[in-house]
């Protein structure tokens, strides 16, 4: 099978899931990496080292910033001419959108956020979680190319081979600046920290982190401000453990809706669906929407004062107790064991 893989990146920094997609494509036959951007030739070298048999590189000022129309037009124009059997993209904000639009141009379909791929005859059969992972759906696409976006961390990273190289073909973008309807005016950066989607370890907090009875809030705060103040003290403990473990900080919807942390931290059905190697849930009861977003984590640890909390049904290890005592002790224990 001839597979193309779109290498998603931000300012020349490849998203790790791009290489996972490249590895998945390589398993099916020959794989061509497609790279769009400006001054991104270094990515071609990385693509070869990750196993690409060929690289198509459009390096152009009109591609300096990601814009949906410009990027998807370039991909569909190239694909229409070369007819790959499949196009793989990582399930990132950009990957999903390019896939969506290229499918319209190429009169084909997209199988989104898949976690497994098999080949039957000359067709790809994917498995993808739906209802935030409450169900699994097998899907096929009757037209070509079969466009697939691959969930991050669901496929292994390919082994890299330093110095490996192959054919690099430079191509032109499909649209000129005058034809592109949108303008990028700038960026505001996210808060520092490990991204939830790429994280191999996540430490999360729920409503329970605001209930520390031992704290005396400063005077002059109203009821809501007091709750937020308490939650901030609680999340400080979550963040300390996360920092020692090099982990991302997650949160339940209840904690986000109560204003404890920003939405970018939300894990669950209306937040991010994650699948880290280790997920430590603190003060999270385990509503069905939250469990849907993290149940495929390899090892789940739950700290909760309520023995009957549903989170214990998916957890490998549980502590029934006061998270305000357990968390700092756990942070100290890891500091000592990891030599930090």
């Amino acid at each position: 099978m001839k597979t193309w893989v779109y290498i998603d990146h931000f300012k020349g920094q490849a998203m790790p899931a791009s290489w996972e997609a490249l590895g998945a494509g390589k398993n099916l036959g020959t794989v061509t990496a497609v790279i769009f951007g400006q001054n991104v030739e270094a990515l071609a070298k990385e693509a070869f080292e990750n196993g690409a048999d060929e690289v198509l590189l459009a390096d152009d000022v009109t591609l300096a910033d990601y814009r949906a129309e410009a990027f998807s037009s370039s991909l569909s124009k190239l694909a229409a001419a070369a007819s790959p059997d499949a196009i793989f993209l990582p399930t990132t904000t950009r990957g999903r959108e390019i896939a969506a639009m290229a499918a319209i141009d190429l009169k084909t379909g997209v199988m989104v956020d898949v976690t497994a791929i098999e080949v039957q005859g000359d067709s790809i059969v994917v498995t993808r979680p739906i209802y935030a992972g409450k169900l699994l759906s097998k899907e096929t696409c009757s037209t070509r190319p079969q466009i697939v976006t691959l969930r991050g961390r669901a496929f292994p990273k390919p082994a890299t081979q330093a110095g490996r190289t192959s054919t690099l073909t430079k191509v032109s973008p499909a649209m000129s600046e005058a034809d592109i309807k949108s303008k990028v005016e700038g960026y505001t950066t996210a808060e520092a920290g490990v991204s939830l989607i790429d994280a191999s370890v996540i430490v999360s907090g729920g409503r329970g982190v605001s209930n520390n009875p031992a704290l005396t809030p400063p005077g002059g705060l109203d009821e809501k401000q007091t709750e937020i103040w308490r939650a901030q003290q609680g999340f400080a403990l979550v963040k300390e453990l996360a920092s020692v473990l090099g982990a991302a900080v997650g949160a339940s919807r209840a904690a986000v809706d109560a204003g404890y942390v920003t939405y970018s931290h939300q894990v669950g059905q209306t937040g991010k669906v994650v699948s880290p190697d280790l997920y430590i849930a603190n003060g999270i009861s385990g509503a069905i929407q939250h469990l849907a977003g993290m149940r495929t984590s390899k090892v789940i640890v739950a700290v909760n004062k309520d023995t009957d909390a549903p989170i214990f049904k998916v957890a490998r290890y549980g502590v029934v107790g006061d998270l305000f005592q357990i968390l700092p002790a756990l942070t100290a224990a890891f500091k000592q064991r990891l030599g930090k």
Partner: protein
Amino acid sequence: MKIVACIKQVPDSAAKVVVENGRVFWGDAPLVINPWDEFAVEAALQLKEKHGGTLTVISVGGENEKEAIKHALAMGADDAILIADPALSGLDTQSIAQVLASAIQKIGGVDVAFFGRQAIDSDSGLTPAQTARLLNWPALTLAAVISVEADTIKVDRAIEEGRQVVSAKMPAVVSLVKDYGEPRYPSFMGIRKAARAEVPVWSLANLGISAPTSVIAWPEITNPPSRNVVCEIITGSSPEEIAATLADKILAEKVL
């Protein structure tokens, strides 16, 4: 301004969804407006309140699937269109996008079409970009902040790295993320108005299109393998002892 919000009806996010004999069931969980579409309706209403105009909500579904539409009307949408046709069952996202794009064209003169970022049942998140592509409009997806000045719409897009600020001339498609801000609750007056509203039903013939052909098939939907975990409750005489035992167990799992 002429504003449209495309909404979908889905089982409530608290529903326990299971497959039995190849069919999807969600028990007695209510059918509701897709949570992300509430943000689309909210953004549309705020734009209308600021710049004047009308808001029409569009939904594709069976003739009995009016809960989502009623919710949007109760929030303050001016009117609604339900697109229902026997030929519409089991369509893939490309086909739904074709139907929505045709409806937006039939309405005519639309400045902005709002969508939620994705639906919580199929979890595809393709429809906003695909509808934009079919209309040949720019797609400003994952919007957390929206502003309009003259004929230009500007949004802050929530991306992995933070926010990307993008602008485009209208007409445009905009999809919403939760960062936009809480959607309003329907008012008492709004609920009464929605209960009385007559929602016109458009068929594919009304849209002047034939039934789109789905290219994506989903031959098999299954329950995920159950997690056969037995939770080991860690106990000890002090938090320090519990933490030490737990840390050793986690390290032994080789996940760090």
